[in-house]
């Protein structure tokens, strides 16, 4: 309404109505009032100029004229001459840039800031796929699922795309102006009102930049808050050695490993390397039958526990008592046993402890005790004590300086910051990359205190919950878009190079920090290079730099091992007393971590290890607890902990510790983006800073309603079928044929001679002993093969599209089952049941034994899927692939078709990689060499559980693996003759603990 709007004069209207004769029709009270404002409104809504057919007697002519003019004008517009824009072909083609031939650039994926060296595949300037860097110590050629999914994060259309001030778009120069304006008063008081808040970092350049900033503003402070950081590790080290040392393990040298609530195989920055070293010591081939042995005690089931030879679920607070008991048994002096450690008493647990401790003691110097990142500092202290007592330091356990240049306690640091903010001391807060409004502890008061800061700046990949409360939001450059550097778990430095210019004009953290010291702001490249130039002055720098960037790591930058003396007082440890109610355990989500990967569809839809849940977190409890609380899967409950409440669905997880609930962090986001919003519940709402990882006193109240959860596997029992064949190492030693005896292939009863595979015959062997169920292969397959994400409702409908799945089976007791993983890609059966039944020949056998799928020919009868005994075929029930979002088109692998609606698809053994290698080999007039083709799942596998190759090459790895006695075919009795075969899973239990 215009300003001339007048309020209705109801009395006048009534008077008018009274005067009128007959019926008067009126639409609104305004019309009745016959006011000026209403006439204006009418005029705006129905302008007279547009009314061509008014009562003018010449109206018809007018109308025809207008019609004619419109027609003429409509024709004219088509004749507009477009401006000439000449396009330029390459006159001189850049060297190596050949369409169809990808290039690989070394960089590193900084997961919680710790580097994993990778090689990124780039098609004409588009990074499409991450591969491990074989020369990098943290990768050895493999990566984890998060690294694989990082390309999707790069192209995420929901990333923040513009620099903004209070939601309005602003240029970078305006931001710089605002920063300088605010810094002027700060310079006068040495930056007393200036605060920086970052997550963990290992970047030497960033550390140097912070030094410069803090030199310029000595009173400024650099705070650190990593919601799922390794605070307890640091605290434990301080208690043990009096200084914050970093600890890592040489798993390759360890014969006996004790994991104290630690998922060292599948989470944490070194897990890929650990898994690799761990599996290498369990590879049983022919007469090589030596295996390491893993003991695991766990409060919440993890992949590591599922691979353990002996696993014991223990309530989370009892882990410390358990560690103390082990310490007593291996002869650590000074452990307080006066309180009467029940773990040392007689009973099954005590027997377990005695045997494990004995085993550890027998392997002095070649054992390792690994305390979990999310256990108490006291457990870390005890682990250090045990490792010291066992002489493992320097052998399997290595201490170095901390990776983080700012090794402070995250919660303490945040508390200080909030106190300063509350006191009004903070005038300018720069939040680098994190999302503390969402993930700060519930009792921190960060959100409330934030509004007391005058100028709030947020740098982030996404406009998230925190940026909503900051005036300035600067889009951050993705690590694939910018220069930086980072250290690996052992300190090895990688100089990270960009693969592509920032898609959305993002700025790196280096540029942001430089804005506080330098004018004009140098580029990330200059900042990083300048730092390293200062470390390596001289003429040779340019060569050094080129080599370092090219190789993806700087040799000899691993932090040197430090001799530290254990001087902790183990007697001081006082196991916490369990309170009333259930134990609560917080863990970062296995895939979306602390919530930072919430908007990544690949990670959201990746079935979580063991639970196989997608798109949600759940309150995980064990079957016994569920039984006495009368809870079932998907029951919605209210969790009450320390006066705070949150609603969550229940998921029953066999092997979980008793009377405990695990909550994964990272869900319940409200500003994550289209993918992450609304998924799961927010466990941070219950988390307090004094007990960030566990506590007791949780109460559960059943709400009586259900919350649907999307799981990809509903049935975890093998029903007495020979699916995962497993055995103990003794069984293998006494009878190496045991697997073959269980999976008997029927004799080939046919009058027709079988097809002779004269050339290549592709095949795959999967070692179930090695597979740790980390899911990296599933995501790698998704990235390589343009596999779409289908969403939670479609996963509930069992229509997920993963070509490769990790089947998880349990055997034994529900409260502590043995877990087996079986990665299931297409079997490429020689007698493929799917091929026979396809009416249009859309799936056929190649002369090299591949079961090819011809998408163009498929009409979608789904008969092949019905007839596939392995159920590896996936169907596009709807148009699942995103055909419209431009940024996602860039992500796609150009060598793989993007499938449409109504088409069946499945694992192709990465046929595009096979053909690429065959073309190369043909050009050089040779056969494809063994190992030249690596399928995406094989390349990414940390434990080398998957081996692919030509089974006609008898000297090749895959043929040798298939010749092993442990090799068997899944569902062999069906005579499908699968090309994918499995090696039976072996365990190495302690004979003393058997029976």
């Amino acid at each position, binding site marked *: 309404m215009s300003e001339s709007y007048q309020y209705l004069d109801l009395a006048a209207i009534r008077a008018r109505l009274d005067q009128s004769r007959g019926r008067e029709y009126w639409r609104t009270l305004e019309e009745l009032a016959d006011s000026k404002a209403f006439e204006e409104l009418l005029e705006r809504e129905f302008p007279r100029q547009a009314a061509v057919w008014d009562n003018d007697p010449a109206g018809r002519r007018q109308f025809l004229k207008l019609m004619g003019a419109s027609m003429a004008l409509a024709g004219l517009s088509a004749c507009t001459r477009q401006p000439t824009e000449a396009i330029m072909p390459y006159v001189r083609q850049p060297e190596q840039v050949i369409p169809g031939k990808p290039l690989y650039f070394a960089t590193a994926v900084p997961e919680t800031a710790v580097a994993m060296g990778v090689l990124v595949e780039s098609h004409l300037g588009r990074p499409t796929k991450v591969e491990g860097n074989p020369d990098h110590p943290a990768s050895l050629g493999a990566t984890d699922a998060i690294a694989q999914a990082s390309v999707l994060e790069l192209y995420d259309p929901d990333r923040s795309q513009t620099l903004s001030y209070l939601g309005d778009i602003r240029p970078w120069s305006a931001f710089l102006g605002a920063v300088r304006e605010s810094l002027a008063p700060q310079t006068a008081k040495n930056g007393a009102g200036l605060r920086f808040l970052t997550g963990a970092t290992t970047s030497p350049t960033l550390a140097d930049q912070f030094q410069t900033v803090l030199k310029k503003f000595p009173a400024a402070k650099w705070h650190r808050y990593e919601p799922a950081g390794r605070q307890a590790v640091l605290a434990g080290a301080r208690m043990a050695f009096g200084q914050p040392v970093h600890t890592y393990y040489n798993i390759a040298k360890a014969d006996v490993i004790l994991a104290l609530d630690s998922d060292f195989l599948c989470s944490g920055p070194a897990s890929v390397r650990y898994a690799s070293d761990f599996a290498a010591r369990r590879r049983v081939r022919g007469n090589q039958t030596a295996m390491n042995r893993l003991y695991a005690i766990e409060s919440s089931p993890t992949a590591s526990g599922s691979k353990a030879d002996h696993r014991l679920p223990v309530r989370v607070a009892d882990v410390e008592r358990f560690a103390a008991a082990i310490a007593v048994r291996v002869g650590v002096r000074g452990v307080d046993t006066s309180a009467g450690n029940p773990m040392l008493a007689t009973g099954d647990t005590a027997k377990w402890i005695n045997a494990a401790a004995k085993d550890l003691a027998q392997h002095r110097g070649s054992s390792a005790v690994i305390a979990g990142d999310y256990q108490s500092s006291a457990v870390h202290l005890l682990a250090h004590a045990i490792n010291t007592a066992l002489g493992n330091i320097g052998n399997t356990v290595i201490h170095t300086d901390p990776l983080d240049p700012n090794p402070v306690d995250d919660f303490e640091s945040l508390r200080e910051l909030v106190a300063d903010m509350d006191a009004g001391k903070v005038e300018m807060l720069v939040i680098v990359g994190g999302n503390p409004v969402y993930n700060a502890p519930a009792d921190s008061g960060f959100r409330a205190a934030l509004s007391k800061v005058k100028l709030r700046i947020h740098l982030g990949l996404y406009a998230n919950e925190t940026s909503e409360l900051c005036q300035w939001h600067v889009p951050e450059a993705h690590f694939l878009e910018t220069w930086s550097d980072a250290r690996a778990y052992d300190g090895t430095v990688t100089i990270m190079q960009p693969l592509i210019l920032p898609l959305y004009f993002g700025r790196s953290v280096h540029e942001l920090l430089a804005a506080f010291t330098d004018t004009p702001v140098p580029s990330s490249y200059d900042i990083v290079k300048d730092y390293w130039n200062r470390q390596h002055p001289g003429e040779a720098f340019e060569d050094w730099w080129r080599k370092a960037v090219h190789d993806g790591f700087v040799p000899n930058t691993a932090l040197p091992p430090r001799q530290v003396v254990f001087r902790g007082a183990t007697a001081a440890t006082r196991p916490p007393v369990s309170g009333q109610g259930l134990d609560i355990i917080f863990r970062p989500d296995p895939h979306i971590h602390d919530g930072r990967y919430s908007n990544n569809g690949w990670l959201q839809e990746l079935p979580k290890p063991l639970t196989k849940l997608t798109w949600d977190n759940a309150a995980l409890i064990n079957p016994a607890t569920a039984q006495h609380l009368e809870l079932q899967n998907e029951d919605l409950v209210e969790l009450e902990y320390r006066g705070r409440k949150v609603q969550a669905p229940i998921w029953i997880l066999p092997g979980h510790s008793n009377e405990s609930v695990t909550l994964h962090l990272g869900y319940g986001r409200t500003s994550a983006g289209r993918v992450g919003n609304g998924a799961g519940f927010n466990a941070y709402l219950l988390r307090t800073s004094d007990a960030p990882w566990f506590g007791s006193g949780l109460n559960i109240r059943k709400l009586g309603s259900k919350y649907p959860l999307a799981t990809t*596997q*509903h*049935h*975890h*029992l*093998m*029903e*007495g*079928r020979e*699916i995962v064949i497993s055995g103990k190492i003794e069984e293998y030693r006494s009878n190496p044929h045991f697997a073959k005896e269980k999976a008997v292939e029927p004799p080939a009863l046919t009058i027709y001679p079988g097809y002779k595979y004269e050339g290549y015959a592709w095949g795959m062997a999967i070692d179930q002993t090695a597979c740790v169920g980390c899911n990296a292969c599933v995501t790698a397959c998704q990235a390589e093969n343009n596999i779409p994400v289908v969403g939670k409702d*479609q996963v509930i*409908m*069992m*229509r997920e599209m993963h070509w490769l*799945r990790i*089947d*998880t*089976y349990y055997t034994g007791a529900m409260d502590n089952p043995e877990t087996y993983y*079986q990665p*299931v890609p297409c079997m490429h059966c020689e007698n493929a*049941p799917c091929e*026979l*039944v*396809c*009416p*249009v*020949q859309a799936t056929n056998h190649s002369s090299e034994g591949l079961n090819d799928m011809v998408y163009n*020919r*498929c*009409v*979608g*009868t*789904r*008969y092949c*899927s*019905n*007839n596939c*005994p*392995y*159920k590896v*075929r*996936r*169907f*596009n*029930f*709807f*148009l699942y692939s995103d055909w419209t979002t431009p940024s996602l088109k860039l992500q796609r692998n150009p060598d793989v078709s993007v499938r449409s*609606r*109504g*088409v*069946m698809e499945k694992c192709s053994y990465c046929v595009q990689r096979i053909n690429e290698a065959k073309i190369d080999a043909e050009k050089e007039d040779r056969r494809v060499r063994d190992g030249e083709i690596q399928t995406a799942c094989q390349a990414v596998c940390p434990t080398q559980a998957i081996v692919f190759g030509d089974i006609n090459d008898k000297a090749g790895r895959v043929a040798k693996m298939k010749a092993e006695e442990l090799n068997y075919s*899944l*569902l062999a009795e*069906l005579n499908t003759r699968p090309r994918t075969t499995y090696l039976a899973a072996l365990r190495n239990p302690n004979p003393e603990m058997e029976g």
Partner: protein
Amino acid sequence: MSQERRELLEVQPGRPPVIAPGHTFGTVTDKISSIVLNRKTPLYWFIPFAISLTLVLLFLVAVTYLFVRGVGIWGIKIPIGWGWAITNFVWWIGIGHAGTLISAILLLLHQSWRNSINRFAEAMTLFAVACAGMFPLLHLGRPWLFYWLFPYPNTMRIQPNFRSPLVWDVFAVSTYATVSFLFWFVGMLPDLATLRDRARNRFARAAYGILAMGWRGAASHWQKYETASLLLAGLATPLVISVHTVVSFDFAVAIVPGWHSTIFPPYFVAGAIYSGFAMVLVLAIPLRALYGLHDLITMRHLDNCAKVMLATAEIVAYSYIFEAFIAWYSGNTFEMFAIWNRMTGPYWPTYWLLIFCNLVAPQLLWVKKYRTNVIWLFVISLDVLVGMWLERYVIIVVSLHRDFLPSSWGMYAPTIWDVATYVGSIGLFFFLFFLFIRLLPMISIFEVRTLLPEAEVEK
């Protein structure tokens, strides 16, 4: 011949006649043709016609949405790749079988009592096949490419996979539809000519005239007609057996436990005839009541149909029992599990309901009291139709939902679109059927005439 006809027409104690006494050529012709030509279209035609037309519209909505979104609107998933659509396909195809059996096999076997029910039974076949034929096309992921299932010459030089039972299906069903249509249409020529001659409305006269293809009732016409109908009967007879045999191959050729069985062809054929006769009764009982055709469709017909149902019910029962026995006898883990899962798994109610409907309830037909009571017959026939639908549901869904690897097991539930498509196809069937009884003679006039004593006189 005369002996046989006498047997048919003589009123024997306790055995109702095929045609009620008192009819002449003229009365039969009047009675049947007047339904189409003279009588005012009754309300009891309009009401069901309107209902079925509504359901046709529902069907169109369901199919349009299906084409726009994709087969994902149904409840199918991995591992249950086929759901209601294929269940409906097999069910409809089965229903069609009774018509062909009545018209072809019974013709060859000189079962002249069939003459009063063969016309609408054949129409039923045709409409059932039309409904059935749509489902395999609708269930395709890319239905616009359905013609790829036919071996047509093309520049890609690709032919369908002749090893696939689905291709056999294409041939079986399309041959069946063609032969059924020809048989029905050729069999109707003399009657169409009758209608042409009796129609008073110019438009109707022209329409029936065109359809009658110049039939004048000349002796040469009759001679050619007899040859053609015998030949078509000869062609249709193996189809009764072959079509459902081929349909059963869709399952028997696959390796899914619960499908992979050699008993399927005879079991499916028997089941098809079983459900087909049930549908004949479901149609005949209300028709004869509403149109007052008790004298042409007598209790004798209903009794005979019930006997066929009873016979096929026993074959089907035998198959169920042997399916379970062979699964146990095979000692095969997967087979045993598949049967056990049917009986005691999450879908146990469907299995036991099917056993009740197909195996237990029809045993009432042993008793003459039930065979000759139209209400009972009608209820039992509906029960058999439900049972036969459940049988296909159990075979398809319950076998697929738990096959070899427990990791891939899943549960199936239809969506509202599954239901809409199915109910819509029933609507389509009745829509076509009501059009048929309004526009064409639902009972073969000239064939019924041959049953009359007058026909004897001519000889």
